[in-house]
């Protein structure tokens, strides 16, 4: 599919969400340490910035129990320990600022154990929060861009499993990204497929990838996620053949084929219950089956031709 509105000269804004969940990165079976992966990711960021002089970058860390901008940093009062102020003759200044900000930001987050200890759901990181932050940032960037040429996209690098409580926020993010034509690319570095993010990539027409060998992360990033929005029109990008769009019921988190949906709040249940647990609506005793539905409609229509003479129809006086 070719989008002719995108120009070759358009600057690209890349928002990278890095999942730094220490419970996953420090897991004994982890094939790659966070430090190693970070070297790959920094090289990728530099490559993006090197692509065009006006390419822009934002980096957001998604931690357990917290989500924070790493770059650009909040331009508040600069504490004494800030790095990157000293010029290094051997490094391109733009790269150095980004690399230092990301590395020190992650170190600072990992040193503070509080958010991770307070978090109830320790298995997963705050992907939904990071996506929300990224979308707000993009919204502001598009607004302040007078020419309307900035092409934004989001790249999520994740290792954590999905958190079921994040479902609605992630879905909200997906739909606002879809509305604004922002593709969400997802690289699930290892582990099981992330179902919500898979849907995110599918709905927003982004790329979902799970590398076969995480140690070759840089190669995957460079070849699949670096091409800008213009070049994507001409590339054969990795696609997803099978996306799981089945729903999980709200009561037991079971995947269902045929479910019961509350007509008021659209919560999905796997079996009939008299009261909706989400919105506390009380239901009629039996779920409406299609045959019963048709009869009910006829009775409501006060149709004199309906073959039910035994029950008197409510006639208006």
């Amino acid at each position, binding site marked *: 599919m070719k989008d002719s509105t995108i120009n070759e000269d358009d600057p690209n804004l890349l928002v990278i969400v890095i999942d730094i969940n220490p419970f996953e990165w420090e897991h004994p079976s982890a094939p790659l340490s966070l430090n190693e992966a970070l070297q790959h990711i920094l090289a990728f960021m530099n490559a993006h910035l090197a692509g065009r002089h006006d390419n822009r970058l934002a980096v957001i860390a998604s931690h357990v129990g917290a989500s924070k901008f790493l770059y650009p940093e909040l*331009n508040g009062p600069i504490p004494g320990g800030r790095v990157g102020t000293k010029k290094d003759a051997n490094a391109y200044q733009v790269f150095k600022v980004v690399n230092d900000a990301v590395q020190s930001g992650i170190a600072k987050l990992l040193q503070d154990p509080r958010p991770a200890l307070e978090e109830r759901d320790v298995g997963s990181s705050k992907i939904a929060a990071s996506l929300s932050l990224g979308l707000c940032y993009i919204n502001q960037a598009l607004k302040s861009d007078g020419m309307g040429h900035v092409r934004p996209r989001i790249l999520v690098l994740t290792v954590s499993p999905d958190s079921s409580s994040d479902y*609605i926020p992630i879905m909200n993010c997906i739909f606002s990204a879809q509305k604004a034509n922002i593709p969400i690319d997802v690289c699930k570095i290892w582990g099981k497929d992330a179902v919500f993010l898979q849907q995110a990539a599918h709905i927003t027409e982004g790329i979902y990838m799970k590398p076969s060998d995480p140690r070759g992360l840089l190669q995957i990033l460079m070849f699949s996620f670096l091409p800008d929005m213009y070049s994507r029109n001409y590339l054969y990008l990795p696609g997803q053949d099978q996306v799981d769009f089945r729903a999980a019921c709200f009561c037991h988190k079971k995947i269902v084929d045929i479910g019961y949906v509350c007509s008021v709040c659209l919560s999905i249940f796997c079996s009939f219950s008299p009261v909706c647990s989400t919105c506390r609506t009380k239901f009629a005793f039996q779920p409406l089956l299609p045959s019963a539905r048709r009869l009910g409609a006829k009775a409501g229509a006060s149709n004199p031709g309906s073959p039910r003479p035994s029950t008197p129809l409510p006639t208006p006086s």
Partner: protein
Amino acid sequence: MATNGRRQVDEDDDDIIDVDDSSLQNNQANYAWEEEYKRSWDVLQEDEHGSLAGVVNSLQQAAKRKRQLRDTDPIQRGIIRHLFIIVDLSSSMQEKDLRPSRLSLTFTYLEAFVAEYFDQNPISQIGLIGTKDGLAEKLTELSGNPTEHIRTLKMKKFQEVGGEPSLQNALELARNSLIHVPAHGSREILVIMGSLTTTDPGNIHDTIAQLVQDNIRASVIALAAEVQVLKSLSTQTKGTFGVAMNEGHYRDLLFEVIPPTAVTTTKTSSNLVQMGFPARSNESAATLCACHNKLTLGGYICPRCNSKLCDIPTECDICTLTLVSSPLLARSYHHLFPVENFIEVAWKDAAATTACFSCQKSFLSPHKVSLQLQATTDAGRYQCKLCDKTFCADCDLFIHDVLHNCPGCLSQPRRLFGKPKAMATANIPKATVQK
């Protein structure tokens, strides 16, 4: 036919900035042409540097806030909707008081309306009815597929006008289709009327009474003037009524219909609806689909009867099971868990934050803004009550209108804010509504 050529200004719809309070009070009694002329430029006062920037800024902020302070009460909303749009295709639609003409503006707006409607009401349905020469004709059947409606709206054939409209015929046509929809969905009619008269075969008040009895809500947008019969149609069926004053107002009136309406009547029974979540299948050989009887590669397999359908959301043609996908349902969840309105931060508390939490835009420091300017403007900082994070006006608007997530609340450990708290408060007003 009782027609009444009055054109009244709706009390709550004046977009012009009110200067004079007395004119506002008399507003209800006066006709638009009797009102004193509002001089909107009077509010613009220069500050000591001769600059208008501060005032203009505060006016813009006020306009933003006005749009954005919506009710976040999580009342029950009829999310599964069935709506018929009745479009007047009589010769009066050729009038050019709305540019380029009433008819072409209506069709342009309707295309946008259909797209936006299905974006916000993903499992709802729309049908289109046109009325001209005293007859009513169904342009499209009630269906949940936006492309079909938009294609119809683009066809020139349906844009021919002529003769008189027939309100009664159109309402009866819509009613006959709507009474068959299941009781858990809402039944709505939207009438877009350019004509001041209608040609009806019988007594229209009987039809209106029928609509009331069948629990059909009819809203009316009149393009010419307030017509008595249209007004009484909308008031009796608990719909809304509006007269389009200009192009922008017309669009606003039309788009007000899009958010799902709150369920107030106890008549609409809520129920658990059986729905299927089909998986998409990719086949190497083409097979016949159940909906169009055409050979297609791949499709969605109904989980109950295993027939193949081309597209979802739809109703299975074989076993009438409603087929949806889970992202479609998720599209309307934000109506159920709205983000709380943010509170404005006063200038005196403004020094605590230097930049917007979500977009990193730095705020104006209160030390750099003169006290006089502070009195007329607000600080441009908006705070979430739950997480105490501060946002700029742009993000505030974006979060409430588009995103429907508070990034601050999400960025905290889940124990601190938590869904349980939000949902517990959410349930209180609901219970009272139900009683």
